[in-house]
């Protein structure tokens, strides 16, 4: 009988530590499947980040270097420049990437580094207990916006996939969700496309995954999944914002003119 489903080979056989209903496990799996499908386990070097995703080395049987908070894209830059044949990616949360690491992510994309960034946006700081993230939605309640995010005081949610798509160094930028089978299929496609972009040395590649954090949203897993559909997706539209080889976005050489 043909086997149609199994644990990805690059994942170590241990249970994830993530809370029930957390989407990190799904995104880990998508990334692991892509590593397997492109046969990259022996070429992969991960720059891990700080937050709930810090334990990459407990789950992925590949080489991993830990980065300071927000700095993973700079670490990945150093790794990739020294090992141009390696498959190098970061896996970062919204606080890590879009707050403390804003400078590193923008400049890494703008240099067109041949690295891939998997960005988990659950609109909240998970590891530290549910504080406002740069991606927290208007009126969303967090422990540091107890009356809801007021843009007069706390500004607006950052739209990283669109922002990075504007940069000439970015070859691929997409936003996906993993809250339904249909969205998961799209997410898998985007993940593979981002990997292929790096393998083709086309430029910087980026996938943003809208994700649920039931624990810090203080919701059941079902309600959290619904919230992704009903609140997150309207605020953060899904789609491919740039795929250079598909003819979208500018050519970096022409951007100079």
């Amino acid at each position, binding site marked *: 009988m043909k086997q149609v489903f199994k644990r990805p080979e690059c994942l170590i056989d241990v249970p994830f530590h993530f809370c029930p209903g957390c989407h990190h496990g799904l995104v880990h799996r998508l990334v692991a499947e892509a590593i397997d499908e492109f046969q990259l*386990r*022996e*070429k*992969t*070097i991960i*720059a*891990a980040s700080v937050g709930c995703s*810090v334990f990459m*080395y407990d789950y*992925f*049987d*590949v*080489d*991993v*270097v*830990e*980065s*300071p908070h927000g*700095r993973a894209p*700079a*670490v*990945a*830059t*150093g*790794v*990739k*420049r*020294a*090992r141009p044949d*390696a*498959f190098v990616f970061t896996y970062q949360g919204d606080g890590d990437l879009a707050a403390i690491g804003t*400078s*590193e992510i*923008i*400049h890494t994309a703008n*240099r067109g580094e041949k690295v891939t960034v998997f960005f988990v946006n659950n609109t909240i700081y998970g590891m530290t207990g549910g504080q406002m993230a740069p991606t927290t939605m208007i009126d969303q309640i967090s422990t540091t916006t107890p009356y809801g995010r007021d843009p007069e005081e706390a500004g607006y949610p950052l739209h990283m996939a669109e922002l990075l798509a504007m940069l000439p160094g970015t070859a691929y930028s997409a936003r996906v969700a993993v809250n339904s089978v249909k969205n998961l299929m799209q997410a898998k496609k985007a993940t593979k496309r981002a990997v292929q972009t790096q393998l083709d040395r086309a430029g910087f590649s980026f996938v943003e995954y809208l994700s649920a954090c039931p624990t810090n949203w203080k919701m059941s897993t079902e309600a959290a999944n619904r919230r992704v559909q009903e609140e997150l997706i309207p605020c953060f539209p899904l789609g491919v914002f740039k795929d250079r080889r598909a003819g979208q976005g500018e050519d970096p050489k022409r951007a100079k003119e």
Partner: protein
Amino acid sequence: MNEKHKKALVKGNDAVAMGAIEAGCRFYFGYPITPQNEIPEYMAAHLSDGRGTFIQAESEIASINMLLGASATGARAMTSSSSPGISLKQEGLSYMAGSEIPGVVVNMSRSGPGLGGISPSQGDYFQATRGGGHGDYRVFVLAPDSVQECYDLTMLAFDMAEKYRNPVLILGDAMLGQMKESLDPKTYRPTGTFDKSWILTGAKARPGRFLKSLYLDDGELTEHNWKLYRKYLKMREDVRYEALWLEDAELVVVAFGSMARVLKSSVDMAREEGLKVGLIRPITLYPFPEVFIRGTSRHIRHFLVMELNTGQMVEDVKLSAEPGARVDFFGLPPGMLPAPDVLLGEIKKVYPSAASAPKERS
């Protein structure tokens, strides 16, 4: 002698860059700041066009993390900056020390606090020798006092970084970085062979490796810190210092870097006048030559520490010297570099040392 190894008149900053390339450094990450700009400019000229990687990063923070990434793969890599930029690098240095990732960092220091100024200063001694960032760690610190040493010690820095799997800091200052001297650009000869079994290459036919500083299980972090501590103790085998005119000395002047350089002239002048003055110049600031200073203090009971700050290394000399030895201090905060005769005047203020009890002097 081929062209490459011909003697030349070179700036200290260029000598650092030349030493790095000679030692096999092919990855440089930096951000502009005075007075060290010749280093990134030299590296840009010599590592572009496929000869290596030069990145002008968006910040000193990004630079140190690019260094962390490149070094994690086993490559010889370097970043350089000056005091305010080195403050920004401290987070990365702490992570590198914690994850045991080597790397060479140059601080052609300027004066602080804050934006301070661009004049020579030794105000970063504490930051350099006490770790500098968060956590209980140390970096190996080399302090050149000439253009030749800027070159030689940079080559050594790469060896020490790999030997100890630890960041190595070269602490110079505006004077050393900007002055020109004759340089003999010697051929690099490694001081040993270094273990590379930990580097990240992609897990080809082996399990994944990781470099990390996060330890959450019971007792794990305690053991990790003890392991680092044992490594810092072992660094003592590579302690370096210069000792001059100690045989009959009654007073030993202790200074490092550019201050020691000026003092060599002052001590020379003192000797010409018949004053029995010696000089100890720590070359490694961490590990500090405490054993040598302790031994010296058993027969020479009087030290005068001179620094371009209000008193930092003097603490290490006091901790090193035997109880009862007298340790005087003369410090100059940033803003001016003293002339040799000024320092000679300061030496005479505490000499002769019979004066261990100065009030008895008539």
